[in-house]
């Protein structure tokens, strides 16, 4: 399968690979996917509580090049956004940016799920109700 240049770039030079301290109250962690499905993404955000802004984002992904690129791109987009802005990220924006083929759309869906799951975790840690997560 031919990958787009952007997928290859994110795969070869992934942004923001790593781990944030999940014991911190202002760090939200989302772990989505399943090993037997061939994709597991862990996406973490660190939020400045005063401004409700995401100051840092990290990921680790077990998956194909498109899954790695989708999560790498997501972390790039998350930094500097408010939590509400982050919630508005739609998987189709990832599809467009990375020129993902139809068979790889599920990678972008997983990245969107990971963002929402991380935000939900952050909310719960801070006494807010969990997000209703739609599982695709």
């Amino acid at each position, binding site marked *: *399968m031919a*990958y787009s240049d952007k997928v290859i770039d994110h*795969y070869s030079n*992934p942004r923001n*690979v790593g*781990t944030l301290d999940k014991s911190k109250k202002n760090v939200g962690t989302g*772990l*989505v*996917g*399943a*090993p*037997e*499905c*061939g*994709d*597991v*993404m*862990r996406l973490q955000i660190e939020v400045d509580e005063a401004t409700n802004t995401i100051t840092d984002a990290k990921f*680790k*992904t*077990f*998956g*194909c*090049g498109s*899954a*790695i690129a989708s999560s790498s791109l997501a972390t790039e987009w998350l930094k500097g956004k408010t939590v509400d802005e982050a919630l508005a990220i739609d998987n189709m924006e990832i599809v467009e940016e990375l020129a993902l083929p139809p*068979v*790889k*759309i*599920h990678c972008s*869906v*997983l990245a969107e*799920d990971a963002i929402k799951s991380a935000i939900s975790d952050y909310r719960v840690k801070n006494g807010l109700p969990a997000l209703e997560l739609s*599982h*695709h």
Partner: protein
Amino acid sequence: MLKLPIYLDNNATTPLDPRVLEAMMPYLTDVFGNAASRNHPFGWAAEEGVDYSREQIAKLINCDAKEIIFTSGATESDNLGIKGVFEMYSQKGNHVITATTEHKAVLDTCKHIEKLGGKVTYLPVDEKGLISLADLEAAMTPQTILVTIMYGNNETGTIQPIREIARIAHAHGALFMTDGTQAVGKIPVDVIADGIDIMAFTAHKMYGPKGVGALYVRRKNPRVKVTAQMDGGGHERGMRSGTLNVPGIVGLGKACELARLEMEADTARLSAMRDRLEKELTTLEESYINGSVEHRLPHVTNISFKYVEGEGLMMGVKDLAVSSGSACTSASLEPSYVLKALGLSDDLAHSSLRFGLSRFTTDEQIDYAIGHVKEAVTKLREMSPLWEMFKEGVDLSKIEWAEH
């Protein structure tokens, strides 16, 4: 200077040996006759080339030249062998025994005869990929007409206990067929000593051209016949009609001759290279060799790297042409059924790489492959949340994964 990508997918196909091409060239140009034309020298010259090829093949597998039926390749040979026996021996019985790790050319042909009213037993394999002789013995019935078990497996290289299998088949009055596609030309295959009645094989896995193969069909002790699957001019003793692919057949013959003369040296060199590749790659933690290490083709290794995803791994080893146990062409991943039959979990099957070496593989290429794979696996693990959890001692089987 090392040329990239490096071809290490020689179980899929091998490059044509220049000496084979040289032998074929006259038959692609001047000697263009139809081997079935008996009335003029053009036909005689073509037939001579074909007959010489039969001799070259016969010497390699220790059969008589008349026992070779030329086909378009191993898939056709498998079809002809199985369907041909099923039809020819229908008075005697309708039961065929095979194994779950066979090539699709055998499995799908068996499914076809099931639709025609045949009964097929698919023997399981153990974690090394070997069938159990006790299972085979237990599966034999008075209706069993054919046992068909491959010689060496295309994905793992595992070699089945052919002689013992043949003995059991014969003790129950059944014929023994083997798909010798990966074995012929790579390891000594002797149809007399091995007790093989029917054998499918092909040129392009042993440095010959694509589009030509053969079916060995025993002529005495016992005399075996297969019903033709294609109607026409009655070529190949009536078992396979169609104008003979003379250049291809000449190429197959030459490839067999070279294999016979060079097998010992090739095996020594290739198994040493394979062992080095395998030893180096299994220094990576959580890497596992798939299939039998004791009973294996000399040029193959199949290794799984846990906590790395197959498609991502393939992208990471882009400088190598290898196969993965993952047929991930769509969103629904289908891990290799051969590796699954060995009992591998989906994730281990997905994260496997198959290396198939050839006569033309060099030490320099193996050095590069070792470094390249190690680098890709290490990089992907650093990026893998599963690897991190494994390193922290998290039991991944205890996690409730969200299905998607």
